[in-house]
């Protein structure tokens, strides 16, 4: 079973990102969970979201505490001890597995983020992608979730870019205009292409 934890701030789209990831994996035949953890509900407040993805039915209904994948949509959460907005939430690296994959939304190089995450000399993988700039360029708004999904497709074999795009086009056509769908698809592709590993 794969366990994913998303960190972001309200309005950055991490709950939707977890939803799209869950739906895409479900469509490829997996058992999935996608669920948010809300703290104080206001714009800019820290928010977490989770995914579980498995070949077998999932019975666990607790939050993900040992993620193998951590996606950080807002780098200002790094170093905060309350990165989920609640006293019990811990920091972004809390409980992550030794070989966890970290993907950080930042223009900075992965080595700098590895140091910021206090992962120097550790086997965890650290990737960076400038998802904020991509979303501004492609969607015209600062919603870094879809470039982060594209980056996840490149960094891991959890999901393919084609399946993500297919799910997004199918499930969100009713909710968003064609321009918004196209912008997000472009943002996914740009996230996929511009991710850096270090």
């Amino acid at each position: 079973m794969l366990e994913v934890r998303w960190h972001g701030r309200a309005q950055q789209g991490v709950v939707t990102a977890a939803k799209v990831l869950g739906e895409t994996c479900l469509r490829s035949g997996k058992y999935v969970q996608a669920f948010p953890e809300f703290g104080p509900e206001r714009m800019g407040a820290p928010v977490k979201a989770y995914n579980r993805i498995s070949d077998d039915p999932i019975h666990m209904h607790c939050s993900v505490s040992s993620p193998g994948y951590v996606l950080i949509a807002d780098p200002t959460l790094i170093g905060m001890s309350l990165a989920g907005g609640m006293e019990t939430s811990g920091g972004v690296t809390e409980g992550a597995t030794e070989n966890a994959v970290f993907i950080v939304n930042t223009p900075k190089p992965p080595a700098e983020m590895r140091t910021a995450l206090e992962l120097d000399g550790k086997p965890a993988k650290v990737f960076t992608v400038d998802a904020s700039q991509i979303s501004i360029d492609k969607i015209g708004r600062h919603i870094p979730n879809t470039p982060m999904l594209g980056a996840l497709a490149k960094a891991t074999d959890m999901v393919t870019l084609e399946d993500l795009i297919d799910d997004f086009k199918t499930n969100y056509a009713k909710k968003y205009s064609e321009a918004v769908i196209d912008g997000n698809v472009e943002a996914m592709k740009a996230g996929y292409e511009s991710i850096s590993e270090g």
Partner: protein
Amino acid sequence: MAIENAKSAQVGLTGNSAVALAMKQINPDVCPAYPITPSTAVIETFSSYVADGEVDTELITVESEHSAMSAGIGAAAAGARVMTATSAQGLALMWEMLYIASGMRLPIVMTNVNRALAAPINIHCDHSDSMGARDSGWVQLYSETVQESYDNVFMAVRIAEKVKLPVMVCLDGFITSHAIENMDTIEDADVQAFVGEYEPEVSLLKESELPTTYGAMSLPDSYMVFKKQQSEAMSGAKKVVEEVSAEFAKKFGREYGLIDSYKLDDADVAIVIFNSATGTTRVAVDELRKEGHKVGVMRIRLFRPLPHAEIAEALNGLKAVACLDRVDSFNDFGGPLFNEVRSSIYDLENRPKVISRIYGLGGRDYKVSDARSVFEELLKIVETGTVEDTTKYITI
């Protein structure tokens, strides 16, 4: 992990969307609504079905939950099939009307997305809302998953209309209401065939040789007779829940009992619990079984009426049991589940020791490790023969 291209027949829905979809497929006559977190999306989604003309339901937007239940009572007395949804403070504000709905024997179906009662104010899951309503004369069904929440809504309609009592379908706020999980849906035509047309024997709008009155004054010469009939209806509901669940299983392949036992047959110790935390406990059971410990878990699906005989039978032969309540009764003697399960097994000759553990209040996470800790306490009780703490808060 390789991605397969096989498209699954399942869909991914949140608990709230699944309940709203079930309501759409049932197409009730009236839905009085006053949305509240975390059940807001049930009403939000359902109202879009109403606006899009996908259902024939009269959606009545009211100014409070007290009015929502009042409007529901009026509509149900007139002979309408009525459904609504609420949570926490909303259910609390309905209090007076809950008793009136059950006392008038009106088969209203309400989804309660479990949320902690204030104060302090909190939007997250615990069972203080529906547990407070446990003596209000409503049948209560508790749901472990998104799939079961959806399925229970259909069964609730059949149960309510058969026993002439309102039914509350409970699911965990956020944990189930906001989580996307795999689930199977039922075809609209099959839903309609299962729930059928609602034809009340009597109602205010139905022409009948037997004129009816709802909410009449009843003095000491008759009030107790009404209550005895209501009590008998509740007792009889157990058999109806079994029958409806059996018919559902036959038609749709998903089996639900009054209680749901997992690895209890040869168990020495067990946890008894409600809703989503059951699955988490089941993972702990599997882990401890691999380590050679005889542990199991029982989930209570039907809490009103209480399947006391089934509980006693399932726990007969065990040595120690922990009842986990996601609510405190503030009685200095454990939660409602503890008291009722302990009372249910009193007549067993070799009854297990029973402890109360209160967990997960206001959304506090209950992890596999928490379930393991409780099992370890139970195994120690069996080993030493002594209970150190009959009641205790955990996950704190």
